[in-house]
């Protein structure tokens, strides 16, 4: 067991399933024997705004918020949102990027430009960098909403927690008939 706290920052857009992904993570880390805290803000978040969720696990966790500059693992569900939170990254972060762009209102209206070169910026900043076509993989698994579970699969591949703990807690969160799709999404994410 790691004897320091691991900081995971998830960012994206309201409606992408970030909160559910972080709930599954919290259950998994508790089951694996760690103390765990997580934090996000509800309310306005459901209206398509920018969303960030902090998850921290280790032998003892005090703060539910990650200190700026200390996120070890960065999971970006959307490319522009990844850039918004760079100041949170540790000097040697692992970055998992969902290759998906969702235009904010200013870009939709044609008043602003969507930033270019997101992948280059992130890959230069990361010690480990993975760009994952999570939306395509979710569609291949059978449901576009499974983007979050694809990314959990990718997270699993860089942590050392038994796969069974992950799959058990993923299955708990969905109705039985959605089980196979989500297990497939997890498997595709793991191999991505």
């Amino acid at each position, binding site marked *: 067991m790691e004897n320091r706290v691991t900081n995971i920052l998830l960012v994206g857009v309201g409606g992408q399933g970030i909160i559910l992904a972080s709930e599954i993570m919290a259950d998994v880390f508790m089951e694996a024997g760690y103390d765990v805290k997580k*934090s996000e803000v509800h309310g306005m978040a459901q209206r398509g705004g920018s969303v960030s969720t902090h998850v921290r696990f280790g032998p003892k966790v*005090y703060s*539910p*918020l990650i*200190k*700026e500059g200390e996120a070890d693992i960065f999971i970006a569900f959307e490319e522009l949102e990844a850039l918004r939170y760079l100041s949170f990254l540790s000097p040697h972060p692992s970055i998992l990027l969902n290759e998906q762009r969702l235009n904010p209102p*200013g870009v939709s*209206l044609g008043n602003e430009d969507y930033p270019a070169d997101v992948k280059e910026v992130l890959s230069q900043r990361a010690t480990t960098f993975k760009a994952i076509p999570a939306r395509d993989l979710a569609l291949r698994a059978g449901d576009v909403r499974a983007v979050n579970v694809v990314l959990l699969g990718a997270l699993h591949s860089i942590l050392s927690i038994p796969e069974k703990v992950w799959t058990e807690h993923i299955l708990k969160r969905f109705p039985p008939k959605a089980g196979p799709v989500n297990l497939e999404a997890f498997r595709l994410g793991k191999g991505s």
Partner: protein
Amino acid sequence: MNDRRTVLSGNEAIARGAYESGVKVAAAYPGTPSTEILESLGAYSGPHVEWSPNEKVALETAMGAAFGGARALAVMKHVGVNVAADPLFTLSYTGLRGGLVLVTADDPEMHSSQNEQDNRHYARFAKVPMLEPSDSQEAKDYTQMAFELSERFDTPVMLRTTTRVSHSKSIVGEAEPAVPPVKPGLVKDPVKLVMLPANARKRHPVVEKRMEDLARFAETFPENRAEWGDKKAGIITSGISYAYAKEVMPEASFLKLGMVYPLPREMIRSFASQVEKLYVVEELDPFIEEQVRAMGLAVEGKSAFPLMGELNPLLVEKGLKNLPPAAREAAAKLPARPPIMCPGCPHRGIFSILNKMKLFVTGDIGCYTLGFLPPLSAIDTCVCMGASIGHAMGLDKALGEEALGKVVAVIGDSTFLHSGITGLLNVVYNRGAVTVIILDNHTTAMTGRQDHPGTGCTLRGEETFEVDLTKLAKALGVKHVKTINPYDLAAVERVIRREARRPEPSVIISRAPCVLSRRERKVSGKPLAVDPDLCAGCRSCLRLGCPAVAWVKEEGINAMGKKRKGRAVIDEFLCNGCTLCAQVCKFGAIKGNDGK
């Protein structure tokens, strides 16, 4: 005692704590960050759990239950306590039989609020004790302790959370519910419960004596505790600030306060005498700091930590270690991503018309406040629940003819029932020429779609009486009440133009369910599409501010020979088929996917 471990939010843990305490009646009005407390409690069978029309009614209902010897919970966001302050201050005098806990969920940083008032002041103002948990386990434990203290000291107890405690999750041990020690029943005690001046004068000394007793109790309360470490720095703190300070300076000495009012003065004095430098780490106002200073102690507080907004581990570290502002990674200027009305939202059409008519719109609290944002830009005031109607009335009385036809009030159905009814009654009584648009989406949308007296459904999903807004407005004396379909833009404009000019009270009910309510929604759900040959690139559809409509830069000429700098496209996954964009398109370029 704590059998089962589970990951709970602070709000879920408060609900669990209330359940394990044998709470009998719980009442609330939804408000971020407090809403999930009652929703979670509603998942347990046993207690009566209700959405009250507003926070004042919620607290009065809880009071009645506590007068009857039952344990009762009232829950609200920080500004909700302003609404409930009237009963609170005198409840402090009467006391109660069954325990009563009032949860105030504060919102430092105003993630979803109109101000960031620090409700610790209410404890001192109303002369009641206040507990403040730091994580979910404490949220559960302190809820149980609050009920016990309430009965032991014959006082309401306030439990204060902040957004980061309410909405953070951590591990909680759960146990079986207990049977409260007080037996519910009707017990007459009018001298204690009827606050005529003669009786109230007898109660006030009891309140002062109780606060002295509580201050003595605070010295031995186990949740006020010194955690000794290095004595160079001694940190007095509570709530989420404790978590941040412990994170960044675990080696320091801490005085962790579970009860933030009244303070354990002797404990503070003794702690201060044993450390080299004394800090108070607290969010928002210098509530603890000022009391520590009044004891004559030297302390570092707001000189080192911000007065405004949320704290976080970095801010606390900078204050404690006296670090210079860090050289931040140069953040590129990025397009903002504010919250926005959903695709197909019934409010969008109303605000596009209000914008077009250039009216002065007095606004209220709810999803529709987003009508302030561009491109709709059609809200001119927003202060508190129900205020839109008073604002419109005041403008009418101050400006008369000058304002006639130029001002309307907008208010949601839940907000109207919360505190708009009296405002409308005033418009009728004092003969205001005011037009009120009730945006009736049949739910309390912004907080996540809770029921209210106009939905026909209780918190537990049981069928109940549904108030008829038209009949209600007529009963108040409004002669002109008109219902409109907000998806019919031409009709919306026609009716608003006519009613706004009326020199009498008038109510327009814009009726269409929240688009997130799949069960009820009226829009087709079938996405529309833009015909690239017909689109003239005029951007009329973009001015609706719908997330499903986007602009593609592409200079050229369309099939009809019109020059354009780009064209509109509709995202088929986001579009709900509300047809507003098709209605504003002058070129007939927007149609159903099947060409209709």
